[in-house]
């Protein structure tokens, strides 16, 4: 198990208000998996991502990464191993920095490779995410949304990370662009044996990219299982209502929704 969450809880308190964002979540993720964390707004899925990334500590519970407990204060090595790809690539990249400079910074900060070989490494990384080396000198503003997201993915790869937290990585993209970025992510995972924590609300995407799915509702994990099982035989009523609510296109999908009992 590359990542283990044990009885993880997170409570936010502001004056009178107490919000239990995560309650008692236990989850094991194997190396090479694409684990989807699914839920609506307020389900706790983003809190889970942020706790795993170490942006804030859990209120209680424990996180183990590659067999070692993860401390609240992460070391540089931890930050290198666990990387994030955000929803909006436009705000995830420094607008004043060229693509090459953004990637180079990741290599420099984490001291990856010999300094004189880093320029060549940046070109390799661009190739890995399907971008021409000529993009290296461009500013993020001169790229399309899909290309920017490819740069953000390249940056996560630059760190030679083992676990990548993907927070709605394609929901800001057009459907044709989304299809390509999802393909790229899928290929990179198998090629490099990466582990993904895929945070999303889009069940159709999950169906086609995840190996397992965990469904969250109001901070609790209500169902978990292999992708096939979750979609063919969801057992929790919330999972069923979530799947039934997805607007669908094909006759097979309409039939599936009918089978799940239609819309509530």
């Amino acid at each position, binding site marked *: 198990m590359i990542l283990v969450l044990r009885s993880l809880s997170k409570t936010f308190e502001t004056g009178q208000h107490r919000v239990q964002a995560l309650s008692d979540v236990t989850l094991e993720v194997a190396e090479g998996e694409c684990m989807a964390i699914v839920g609506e707004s307020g389900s706790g899925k983003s809190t889970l991502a942020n706790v795993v990334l170490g942006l804030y500590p859990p209120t209680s519970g424990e996180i183990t990464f590659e067999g070692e407990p993860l401390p609240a204060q992460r070391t540089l090595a931890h930050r290198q191993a666990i990387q994030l790809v955000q929803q909006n690539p436009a705000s995830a990249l420094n607008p004043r920095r060229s693509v090459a400079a953004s990637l180079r910074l990741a290599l420099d900060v984490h001291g990856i490779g010999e300094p004189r070989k880093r320029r060549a490494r940046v070109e390799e990384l661009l190739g890995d995410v399907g971008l021409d080396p000529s993009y290296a000198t461009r500013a993020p503003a001169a790229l399309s949304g899909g290309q920017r997201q490819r740069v953000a993915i390249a940056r996560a790869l630059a760190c030679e990370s083992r676990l990548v937290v993907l927070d709605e990585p394609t929901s800001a993209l057009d459907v044709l662009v989304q*299809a390509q970025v999802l393909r790229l992510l899928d290929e990179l995972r198998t090629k490099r044996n990466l582990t993904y924590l895929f945070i999303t609300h889009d069940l159709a995407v999950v169906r086609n990219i995840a190996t397992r799915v965990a469904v969250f509702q109001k901070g609790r994990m209500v169902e978990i299982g292999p992708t096939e099982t979750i979609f063919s035989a969801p057992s929790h009523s919330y999972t069923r209502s979530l799947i039934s609510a997805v607007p669908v296109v094909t006759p097979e999908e309409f039939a599936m929704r009918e089978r799940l009992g239609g819309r509530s």
Partner: protein
Amino acid sequence: MSVLAIRDLTLSFRLWSGPVEVLHGISLSIARGERVALVGESGSGKSVTARIVLGLLQDQSGARIGGRVEFQGRNLSGMSARERRALRGRDISMIFQDPTSSLNPVFRIGGQFREVLARATPGISDTKARATATGLLEEVAIHDPARVLDSYPFQLSGGMNQRVMIAMALANRPSLLLADEPGTALDVTVQAQTLDLMRTLVDDHGTSVLFISHNLGVVREFADRVYVIYRGRIVEEGPTRAVFEHPGHPYTRALMAAQPNLTGGGLPRIPERDPSFLAPLVVHGDRT
């Protein structure tokens, strides 16, 4: 007669770097009570089309509009800014993607509702406005209208705000409703309820709808007829079923194939751009 008829609409913006063509002559029509979707990706020109229909781009310097937009047989381009303004909120209304930012955060819902009603009934009394608003909120399945009217938008959920927006948009019984990605900012379960509600209401009132979306699933479920727009050109049009079951244009086919399927099937290999996407218009029969 069509409620809305657009013929050869062109739009270009003059920028310091030269003119940018946004719409290359699009034509579309909406009959009374018809729900028509304009589907396309970002930058395809779908939202600017709605803005022209609403009369918001005509007054903008730098925007050059050609072709004809007729609303109930009247040419919008021939109208004065004042005449166009008179249509907005009364005969033509609009629902935007993000309900919470469409409402004014510093006024209660009740006051904002009164302003909408005053567009059609100038000088409407507070009591009358409140009574009407209460009825309209009940129509969108809000069970405690009094509390909602006394709330500020930030005190309500996104789904609740979107219902308020729908109630406001339909308050003056417009003949045309423009809906730009309604529900995209909402959770799927709330989105499904919102769309069901919107469909029932426009059916009851015989409102025509121009529904703008990039979400094929939502379009499939909501629209009677579909126009597919790609880079400022309509590439395919027809009844929803025909377009979805027999997409004829290479771009439409790519869109359908790229849509991840809830029943699985993997991730397709589709080009982001292709010369075939600029192929000529495909029109399906059985036009109403």
